[in-house]
C-alpha cells in the first residue's frame, strides 16, 4: 500500500499542472496576507497641508493614534470617548463639517471610533433597530454598555427571527456565554479575516483543480485498462489515489495557512489576536471568540471544507469520462454556493449552499459572514445556527464522498 502510495505521490507531484497549482497556493498565501495592509490609509495635517500615507507606515500611525482605546473595553473608556464626541459635536455639528479640523479629529475622534461604533450599535432602538445619534447617547448609557449588549441581542433576534422563538432562545443562550468585558487592540481590521476566507477559497479551488483529473484522465487516455488488469489496480488504487489527493491538500493547507498567519499577524501585530470579535464585527456576535480564536475557527472550517471538496472532486473525477467534463463540473461546484447565495438567496439558497461540500467558502456566503449573522436553519425539530451546519455537513460528507468515489471507480467499465 505504502509503496503504491509513494509511487502515486511521485506521479502526481511530477505533473506540471500540480506543481504549478501548488506553487500558486504558496505564492497566493503570501500575497493575500499582504494585500490588506496596502489598503491602510492615514491622513494628517502638517503645516496646513493634508498628507496621506499608505501601507505599513499608515498602519503604524493608526495604531499609535488608537492607542488610548487599546486594552480592556471598560465603560469608563467608552464614556471618556463619548465625552470627546459630545464636546466636538457641540462645536462643529457633525463630523463631516468642513470646519472640523483634521488634527482635532485625529486627536479626539478617531482614537475612540472603533469602540464608540460598538456603543452606537448596542444603543439601537429595541423596536425599529435604528441606532441613535451620538448626541442622544449619554454617559450613563456608556456606563451601562454591557447590559445594553445583553438586551440588544434579545431585541435583535425578535426582529431577525420573528417566527422562530427557538432560534431566539438559542441565540440569547449563546450570547450569555460571551465573556465580558471585551478587548480591543488597534491594527487588525475585519477585512483581514475576509482575506483569510478568500484565500481559503482560492486554496480549495486550486486543490480541486489538482484533484479533478486524478481518475478521469486514466479513462481518457486509456491507461485505466492497464491499471485495472493489475493486482492492485482497483480498490487499492482508488484508496491510494484518494489518500494522495488528501495528502496533497493537507500538505498545501498546512504551510500555506502557516505562512498566511505569520505574515498577516506580523504585519498587523500579534497582540491584535486578543481583540474581541464583538468589537471587530458586531457587538452581538454570538460566539465568545477573540480574533486569534476566530482565525483558528475559520481555518478549521476551511480545512474541513477543503477535505470535503477534494473528496467530492474525486467522486466527480471517478464518475466523469474525461478531464474537461470533470474540470468544468469542479469549477461549477466550487462557485455554486456563491451563485446560490447571489441568485437564489433566502432560506432556500442557504439550505442549498449548506448542502454543498464547498458551501463554507466563497464570496458573501463564506463561513465568516455566517458567523456574524443570525441565520438559523431548521433541521427537523431543531433550529441550527448556519455556521454549525457549515462545519458539520462537509465533515459528514467526507466519508460519504470517499465511499462513493471508491464505489464509482471500482464499478466503472463493468
Amino acid at each position, binding site marked *: 500500500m505504502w509503496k503504491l502510495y509513494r509511487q502515486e505521490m*511521485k506521479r502526481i507531484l511530477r505533473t506540471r499542472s500540480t506543481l504549478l497549482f501548488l506553487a500558486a497556493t504558496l505564492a497566493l498565501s503570501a500575497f493575500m496576507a499582504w494585500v490588506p495592509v496596502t489598503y491602510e490609509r492615514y491622513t494628517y495635517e502638517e503645516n496646513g497641508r493634508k498628507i496621506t500615507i499608505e501601507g505599513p507606515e499608515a498602519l503604524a500611525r493608526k495604531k499609535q493614534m488608537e492607542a488610548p482605546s487599546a486594552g480592556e473595553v471598560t465603560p469608563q473608556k467608552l464614556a471618556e470617548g463619548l465625552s470627546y464626541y459630545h464636546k466636538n459635536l457641540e462645536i462643529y455639528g457633525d463630523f463631516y463639517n468642513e470646519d472640523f479640523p483634521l488634527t482635532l479629529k485625529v486627536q479626539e475622534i478617531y482614537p475612540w471610533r472603533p469602540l464608540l461604533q460598538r456603543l452606537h450599535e448596542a444603543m439601537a432602538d429595541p423596536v425599529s433597530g435604528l441606532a441613535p445619534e451620538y448626541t442622544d447617547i449619554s454617559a450613563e448609557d456608556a456606563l451601562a454598555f454591557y447590559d445594553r449588549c445583553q438586551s440588544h441581542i434579545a431585541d435583535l433576534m425578535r426582529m431577525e427571527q420573528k417566527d422562530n422563538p427557538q432560534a431566539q432562545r438559542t441565540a440569547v443562550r449563546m450570547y450569555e456565554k460571551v465573556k465580558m468585558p471585551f478587548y480591543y487592540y488597534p491594527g487588525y481590521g475585519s477585512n483581514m479575516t475576509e482575506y483569510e476566507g478568500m484565500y481559503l477559497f482560492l486554496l480549495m479551488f486550486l486543490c480541486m483543480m489538482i484533484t479533478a483529473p486524478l481518475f478521469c484522465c486514466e479513462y481518457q*487516455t*486509456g*491507461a485505466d*485498462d*492497464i*491499471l485495472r*488488469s493489475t*493486482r492492485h489496480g482497483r480498490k487499492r488504487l482508488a484508496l491510494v489515489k484518494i489518500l494522495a489527493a488528501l495528502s496533497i491538500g493537507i500538505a498545501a493547507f498546512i504551510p500555506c495557512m502557516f505562512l498566511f498567519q505569520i505574515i498577516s499577524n506580523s504585519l498587523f501585530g500579534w497582540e491584535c489576536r486578543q481583540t474581541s470579535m464583538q468589537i471587530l464585527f458586531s457587538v452581538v456576535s454570538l460566539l465568545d471568540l477573540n480574533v486569534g480564536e476566530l482565525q483558528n475557527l475559520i481555518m478549521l472550517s476551511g480545512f474541513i471544507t477543503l477535505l470535503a471538496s477534494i473528496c467530492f472532486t474525486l467522486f466527480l473525477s471517478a464518475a466523469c469520462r474525461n478531464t474537461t467534463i470533470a474540470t468544468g463540473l469542479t469549477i461549477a461546484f466550487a462557485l455554486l454556493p456563491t451563485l446560490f447565495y447571489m441568485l437564489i438567496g433566502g432560506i432556500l439558497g442557504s439550505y442549498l449552499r449548506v448542502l454543498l461540500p464547498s458551501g463554507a467558502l466563497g464570496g458573501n456566503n463564506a463561513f465568516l459572514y455566517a458567523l456574524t449573522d443570525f441565520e438559523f436553519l431548521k433541521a427537523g425539530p431543531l433550529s441550527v445556527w448556519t455556521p454549525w451546519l457549515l462545519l458539520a455537513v462537509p465533515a459528514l460528507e467526507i466519508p460519504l464522498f470517499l465511499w462513493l468515489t471508491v464505489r464509482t471507480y471500482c464499478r466503472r*467499465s463493468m
Partner: protein
Amino acid sequence: MELTLEHVSKQFKERKNRKTAVDDISLQLGPGVWGLLGANGSGKTTLMRMICGIMKPTCGRICYDGVSIDDLGDAYRDVIGYLPQEFGFYPEFTVQQYLEYIAALKGLTDKQARLKIDELLTRLSLEEVRRKRITRLSGGMKRRVGIGQALLNDPEFLVLDEPTSGLDPGERVRFRNLLSEFAHNRIVLISTHIVSDIEYIATRNAIMKNGSILQTGSTQELVVQMEGKVFEAAINPHDLSRWEQKVQVVNVRNEADGSVSLRYLGNPDDIPQARPQEPRLEDLYLELFPRR
C-alpha cells in the same frame, strides 16, 4: 493452464436500443499463441476486455483453470498481462519510472521490480532510453514499453490487443519473434486485423465477425477450406478495374514485362489462364471479410 469462455455475451445500451458487441462465444484457450482475427468493430476489444476482467459479460462465464475469473479476483490478475490497443502513458514519466509504477500496481517488491525491469529493458532493446520520457519515444518504442509493462509480472496469460498497430515492418518482425519466444508454456492471445502478425506464429486462430466466432483452428486447418478457391492470373493492366468488379482481389503485383499478376478468390475460369495457388490465411480473411 486453460482459459474457458462459456456462452459469453456482451450487450451495450445505445440510446434506447441494445447493441450486442459479443454474441454467445464459447472458446477454450490452451498454451501457445492464439490469434483473434477480425475486422475493426467485430467485437475483439470488448472480448479482450472481458477476458482481462475489466468488463463483465452480460451473460456467460469466463473461467481460468476451471474457476470463474470473478472468483479468482487478485489471483487472476496476478497471472495476466494486458496491452490494450490504445493506452495512455503518463507524460511526466520516464520509461523506468513508468515500469516502476506498474510494477508497484502488480505487487512486485522493490527488488523484484528492479531485476525484472532491467531484464525487460534489455530484452526489449529499451536500455538506452530508460531515462527518457515516454512521450519522446517513437511509436514502436512506446509499443515496446507497453509490452514491457504487460510482461512485468511474468504472466501465464498475455493478452495483446492490436499490438503491432503503428509499428514498421522491422519492428513487427522483432515483435513476432519476441512473442514466439515468450509463448512457451504460456497462453498468448493476440487480437489483430493484420493477418501477417499471426499467420506464422499462432498455434490456433479464432476468426471473429459481428461479435461471434466464425471459425477456430490452426492456420493449416483454416486455410484448407480455401483450397481450389485461390488463383493467380496475368492480366493486362488496362483490364484491372474490370476484373476487380468481377472477382475478389487479394493482391495486385506489377510484373517487369508490363503485365499485372492478379491473386484472386473465385473460380479458375473467372479469368483465362488462371493458375491455382496455395491458400494463405489472408485469403480466408478476405473471403470472410470481403472488401467489395
